[in-house]
């Protein structure tokens, strides 16, 4: 784990503000009845700063999704510590919103009603959030679909609605679990661009889980490369591509070097898939 500390330290010392997420020795094991327990996360140390876009890349089953659920307060961790905004993490908080692999829109609610679901759950005044919900829907091009039902939307539009649902409470942290993994390549690129635009306008902090090396480098300030199970941090890459980025950045040499570096890291630690 010393390599990780070495990779993370220069950033944290350069930035004097306390990190938004601070994880130390974070481990998660699953008890399996009648068998040895499964170590999903093994002694993770990392910090994520306010406004940063950080991707987590690793092979299937390396614990990426587990990590995200732990950060979202959905799963208790076994040992170590996690602080969110200086406070120990204890369960879900309005400061962090999750976007899942599938849109998880409720088919009996209109798009607007779906987007306002977190407001209902947290017993906040619906009226106060309706305008901002409509504004966000307009921003992602779903203005005319606010009163439609999810089955009337394409997959990309559904995932946009899911993104709006996460943004509607104005969280500081977006936790995204392969949100565009199920979409076709064209829609995926378009949504990546939209996500970048939203992120740079709102300066939210994003933790983004993905299988795609290109997606991770294109979007991120830093990429956390994870080893195969038991998942630990192989290395953390700082992506120094200038912003704002557009799709042409993918063809640059610097992008290619980052991609090759990340791929070699993942190959050395169990491959990508």
């Amino acid at each position, binding site marked *: 784990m010393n390599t990780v500390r070495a990779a993370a330290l220069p950033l944290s010392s350069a930035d004097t503000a306390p990190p938004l997420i601070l994880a130390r020795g974070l481990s998660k094991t699953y008890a399996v009845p009648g068998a040895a327990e499964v170590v999903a996360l093994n002694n993770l140390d990392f910090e994520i700063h306010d406004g940063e876009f950080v991707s987590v890349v690793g092979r299937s089953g390396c614990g990426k999704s587990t990590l995200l*659920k732990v950060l*979202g*307060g*959905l799963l208790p961790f076994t040992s170590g510590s996690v602080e969110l905004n200086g406070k120990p993490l204890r*369960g*879900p*908080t*309005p400061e*962090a*919103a*999750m976007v*899942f*692999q*599938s849109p*998880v829109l*409720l*088919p*009996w609610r209109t798009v607007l009603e779906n987007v306002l*679901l*977190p407001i*209902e*759950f*947290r017993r906040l005044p619906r009226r106060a959030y309706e305008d901002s919900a409509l504004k966000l829907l307009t921003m992602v091009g779903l203005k005319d*679909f606010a009163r*439609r*039902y999810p*089955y*009337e*939307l*394409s997959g*990309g*539009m559904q995932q946009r609605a899911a993104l709006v649902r996460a943004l509607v409470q104005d969280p500081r942290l977006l936790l995204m679990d392969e949100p565009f993994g199920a979409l076709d390549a064209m829609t995926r690129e378009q949504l990546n661009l939209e996500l970048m635009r939203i992120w740079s306008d709102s300066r939210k902090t994003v933790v983004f889980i993905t299988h795609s090396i290109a997606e991770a480098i294109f979007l991120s300030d830093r990429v956390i490369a994870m080893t195969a199970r038991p998942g630990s941090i192989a290395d953390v890459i700082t992506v120094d591509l200038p912003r704002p980025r557009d799709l042409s950045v993918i063809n640059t040499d610097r992008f290619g070097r980052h991609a090759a570096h990340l791929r070699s890291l993942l190959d050395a630690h169990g491959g990508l898939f």
Partner: protein
Amino acid sequence: MAVQAVETQAGEQSGARSGASSGSVLRRYPHLTISPAILVVLLTAWWLASDVLGAPAFILPAPEQVLQALVRGLARAPWDHGSLWYHSGVTVWEALLGFAIGSGAGAFLGIALAHWPILGKSWYPYIVGFQSLPKVALAPLMVVWFGFGIEGKVFITAVITFFPVLVNMMAGYLAVEPERIELARSCNASEWQLLSKIIIPSCLPFLFAGLGVASVLSIIGAVVGEFAGASAGLGMLLMQYNQSLEIAPLFAVIVLLGVIGFLMSHAVGLVERHYCFWAQRANAWREL
């Protein structure tokens, strides 16, 4: 592309609507022609067997005799105890009461047993054991317990309709997408919010599948209950006509039972279409 998809859908809908006003309805919905044609074929076969081939009237009465019996029975006032309206009313009332009690209890307990696994596991053997009993065997006992009134019929109908709804509701609960639950938890939803806003609505397609089965079973329950002993109802009429070998009125009652069963199931389908419109694709057969 997505916008296009929506437009195409809307186009199809408006197309269907404009089609309904023109003469192309039958071309668009061939079953509107085929379904009555099946009836005509069946009636013809019946008529051939009885009138032309000369089957005795106490075995197979002619269609027109059955129609006469039906008209005679329906021509009398509903409060007249000799009218088919009266006896249909008694049977339908028994069936509806039993259906409401049985499926209500089934839905409620289905959620409860699935929500509290300890409860579910403890009750499971008894539920499976009781479900495997032929519940019509309870009918004679009902007469001993409740006499000839409607209570016994309601009870047996409730017992029969309870299981399909219970089983479907439990299946529905267990089929809720885990991500929907994670979504609710990530928003600090309370247990009650999770149940009322996520789990119960998610179960509705399963609930209606169970209600569809239960609606048909409810008529069977009421009729079987009446077989064992009753002072009124279509089941009682069936027994009476059978004993006096009045086969044409007996057939009239059977036809009536078929119509009532169809209407019950159709009514459930209409309610489902209203409350479960979003799941119509999964239950497309109900649109028939």
